């Protein structure tokens, strides 16, 4: 079988294999996650022109004929470096976390153009000189957008019981089953201002960095907590990049 051209394919994970090879996890639209063997990628830097790095969006040639269970990469060309090189450590942590999430939730041979769209929209959010205060809203909005792709995000503006508006505050129960309006909520505790929810909803719908940055800091922590609970359903354990991001955001390093 001749090599197949696949585009776009975003590198989400790279692992050393044997002495000179790499196993590269690619996120694609039509084939979901595609793990490919890149022979001699480490012994010859010229072979794949240094593009087999996380955050690179590629056009690849893949020989799908199976060796064991892996397809073989025969060519790769850079379409877009989603992150670029001019990145601060905190931004790199966030972008790495997004790649880690994508690698985790993606499935082989399972077309998921929404997931690819999510990754290619959110990783560039991290690029450029992201200031430390930008990281929490970008993280929150990226997580919410991923949950929406996975079908786990409740409607952030409508009451789960009466379908009315959640203005002026939404009550999000700890089990995560959607939001309740002030009338339907049994208690008035743990309320999230409508502004936080509306801005988050806007950034999720538009996948847009600018609206994510407008999510107010006040009242955000409860939403962050609920988002974590929902995410743990899809990604039961925190990966390396998530731990790095967390300790960076807590100012531990």
């Amino acid at each position, binding site marked *: 079988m001749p090599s197949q051209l696949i585009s776009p394919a975003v590198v989400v994970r790279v692992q050393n294999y044997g002495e000179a090879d790499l196993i590269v996890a690619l996120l694609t639209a039509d084939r979901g996650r595609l793990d490919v063997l890149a022979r001699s990628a480490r012994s010859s830097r010229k072979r794949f022109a240094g*593009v087999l790095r996380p955050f690179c969006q590629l056009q690849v040639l893949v020989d799908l004929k199976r060796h064991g269970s892996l397809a073989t990469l025969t060519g790769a060309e850079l379409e877009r470096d989603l992150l670029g*090189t001019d990145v601060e450590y905190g931004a790199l942590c966030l972008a*790495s976390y997004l790649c880690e999430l994508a690698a985790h939730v993606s499935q082989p041979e399972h077309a998921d153009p929404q997931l690819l769209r999510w990754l290619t929209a959110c990783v560039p959010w991290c690029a450029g000189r992201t200031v430390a205060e930008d990281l929490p809203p970008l993280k929150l909005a990226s997580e919410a957008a991923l949950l929406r792709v996975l079908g786990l995000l409740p409607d952030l503006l409508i009451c789960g019981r009466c379908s009315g508006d959640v203005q002026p505050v939404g009550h999000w129960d700890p089990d995560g089953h959607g939001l309740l309006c002030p009338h339907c909520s049994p208690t008035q505790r743990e309320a999230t201002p409508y502004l936080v929810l509306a801005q988050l909803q806007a950034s999720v719908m538009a996948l847009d960095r600018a609206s994510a940055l407008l999510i107010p800091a006040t009242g955000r922590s409860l939403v962050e907590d609920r988002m974590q609970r929902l995410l743990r359903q899809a990604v039961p354990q925190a990966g*390396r990049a998530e731990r790095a991001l967390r300790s960076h955001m807590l100012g531990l*390093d």
Partner: protein
Amino acid sequence: MDASLPLAVERLARLLGRLPGVGERSAQRLALHVLAQPVDYAKGLGEALAGLHDEVHFCNECFHLAEEELCRICSNPHRDPQLLCVVEEVADLLAIERSGEFRGLYHVLGGALSPLRGVGPRDLRFAELVARIAAAPPSEVIVATSISVEGEATASYLLGLLRGQTIEVTRIASGVPQGSELEYLDQATLGRAMRARLPLRR
């Protein structure tokens, strides 16, 4: 492995085969080559290998490889302590030494920040660097981490640590390699080279 070979040869071949770039067959060839040499060669090789971990450790100052407390660069009075070059690995230090362009001192971080590989600031020698700079401030710190997303993140993290100090922090230039044709360069390299252009001196 070849069942007809003596166990001693096979054992050596198996150990040699774990070296980078050495496959099973070349490991066997190397083992047979050692055997074909005068016995002193094999003895010398064995002693050199056995003493490696006892005789070599990290320099107390810069974390280059050293036989004494200080490496040969740190203990050299002709090196300029006003210039401090920060690199990721010993191999990078050696590469800069080969260029012959640098007469200052080094600091080997031990890698670059990489969240995906679980390398955070506490896994690298940042604290040692900050302490060293506080004890004997150089006039310039040259950040020679790799030109990659990890290398840049490491450089910007380092810049943050040195913020507020009166030390000049510089970054090695990146751009068009010697002898290369622009046509074949990747966009990122060419873009950087264009942004970091220099005045043409008459």
